[in-house]
């Protein structure tokens, strides 16, 4: 997995609540058997009109947000479908960190599997960063220090689960780690097989 340490770049403001994964990437792009190349599909119905032309009013179609690396948005971001295509599309577009007051659980988990950092902050702090984003200011997400540095040098601290932090910093292969636990898994299975044999056919 790609490591995540610090990320400096433009933040795109998307002041909407309950942005669902259908909006992040519509179903017609879920027919792929690959995980690459989905950046073009990101927010497809918001970004393009019925003829496939860019909608100039959508934030990611405007300078400087075409190069956005961070998204600042509203509460419950990523609700709905479990599709991992949503973080894949964000990452392929170039956005590797999303800042919001809250996230839907599955989307939040999915980000960490892809070297992406979702950051939960109190609404007032998201509001400050939203204003920065609207001004086109750059932000720096500093994972080792667990803070976001604003253009004026001030810092906003965030919290993150230590396990998830380590996974991101080291780009760990979580499956590889779990496979090292194979003896524990086998032991569990043997016990379950004895106590709940109906689960084993």
């Amino acid at each position, binding site marked *: 997995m790609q490591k995540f340490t610090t990320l400096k770049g433009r933040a795109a403001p998307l002041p909407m609540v*309950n942005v*669902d994964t259908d909006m992040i990437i519509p179903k*017609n792009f879920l027919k792929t*058997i690959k995980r690459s190349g989905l950046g073009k599909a990101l927010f497809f119905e918001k970004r393009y009109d019925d003829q496939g032309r860019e909608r100039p009013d959508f934030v990611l179609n405007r300078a400087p947000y075409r190069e956005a690396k961070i998204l600042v948005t509203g509460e419950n971001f990523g609700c709905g479908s479990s599709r*991992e295509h949503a973080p894949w599309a964000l990452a392929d577009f170039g956005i590797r960190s999303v800042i919001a007051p809250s996230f839907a659980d599955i989307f939040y988990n999915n980000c960490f599997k892809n070297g992406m950092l979702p950051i939960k902050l109190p609404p007032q702090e998201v509001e400050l960063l939203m204003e920065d984003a609207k001004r086109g200011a750059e932000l720096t997400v500093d994972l080792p220090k667990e803070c976001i540095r604003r253009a004026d040098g001030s810092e906003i601290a965030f919290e993150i689960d230590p396990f998830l932090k380590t996974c991101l910093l080291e780009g760990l292969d979580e499956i590889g780690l779990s496979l090292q636990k194979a003896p524990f898994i086998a032991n569990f299975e043997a016990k379950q097989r004895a106590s709940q044999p109906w689960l084993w056919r």
Partner: protein
Amino acid sequence: MAAPRTLFDKIWQSHLVERQRDGTAILYIDRHLVHEVTSPQAFEGLRLAGRKVRRPDATIAVADHNIPTTDRAGGIKDAESRLQVETLEANCKEFGVPYIPVADVRQGIVHIIGPEQGMSQPGMTIVCGDSHTSTHGAFGALAFGIGTSEVEHVLATQTLVTRPSKNMRVNVSGRLPLGCTSKDLVLAIIGKIGTAGGTGHVIEYAGEAVRALSMEARMTMCNMTIEGGARAGLIAPDETTFAYLEGRPMAPKAGQWEQALAYWKTLPSDTGAVYDKEVTLDAAAIAPHVSWGTSPQQVLPITGVIPDPKEAPDEGTREAWTRALAYMGLEPGTPLSEIKVDTVFIGSCTNGRIEDLRAAAALVKGRRVAQGVRALVVPGSGLVKEQAESEGLDSVFQAAGFEWREPGCSMCLAMNADRLEPGQRCASTSNRNFEGRQGRGGRTHLVSPVMAAAAAVKGKLTDVRELIS
């Protein structure tokens, strides 16, 4: 004495492979459902790393999202959809995963077939790369949706690295009135708690109204739990659960049945178990519900009127309501029962079971679909379809002017050819009314099967209670 535990606590603790020092846990997964859309990249990951599927015997695969619901004799016309289904078939063959072919009578929506086959059982952990995996919680199983990376993790290790959820209980007293279903109940709950109300929690549904529900009705509630932000819904197993399971192909066989039953009876939450959050509703006060906007929390009783953004409680809500009304093409103050529909969809993992079709057919019988309305019934599985046909429900629907289709996810998410055109308005028994969910520019009103049937015959959103005596 040990502290009283919730149903969730019991399932969680009995599946811990290892508690890690950082607070995460390795959780054992008993059953894994796989479908064509969220699995190809997971199998590819296994292949690239030279890994195997740890327990093919605990895994079952079926194609449902992409497949046509019209005649399938000619195969899948859409090249991308076809490739995705063929990829699933090839992956299952390569990794030894049991696969239910498209032509098999057992084929259907993944969350319909798990329960139907008796695969989903109390006390289990069940996952699938699909958020509506919460459906299986109706059996008192901890069932939740996962992303593709986690699908790969479960295929390789039969475990997940995760943290425990918080406990939330929704108590529903009383009995549902005539014309009201568990769909109305769960829409009312989501309206009350909001789409993020259950975030970080597992929701256990309890109370007299829930106990009185059939398994099908319980599945509808647990299915839509994800729309309330909780990854999993739970209902304690009871005699209704056991009666549903007994004799199903994958249920415990004689000899083990009694042992399983004894265990299942230990699962309900202990008296005095503590919940982090509790919500109470009176089922008797529920009216048939309809969604009016583009989020499942934007729901009202059918007797209501479209709300005015000017009266929204805060700025964020005002913006959301304004956006929703613009998308839905609706004006504040319009009575819901005056909203015309041109499409009706009965089906999905929410409401595509035999009981749903029976209820809708009973209302439709002797009536006609209103002029200008296209109405579809898409059974949740081949077995649901077969059962419905043996009861003559297909004839009832077709005589009324409904289309009778092959099983699949269909117009719930419109990945196949079944979709709304821009501006079309649909009364739908599915689970999500997001913008574009049923087709770009399509407008969705979530309803129960009988409310969908009522909308079909009246050509507008209709209070089903006016049509039943």
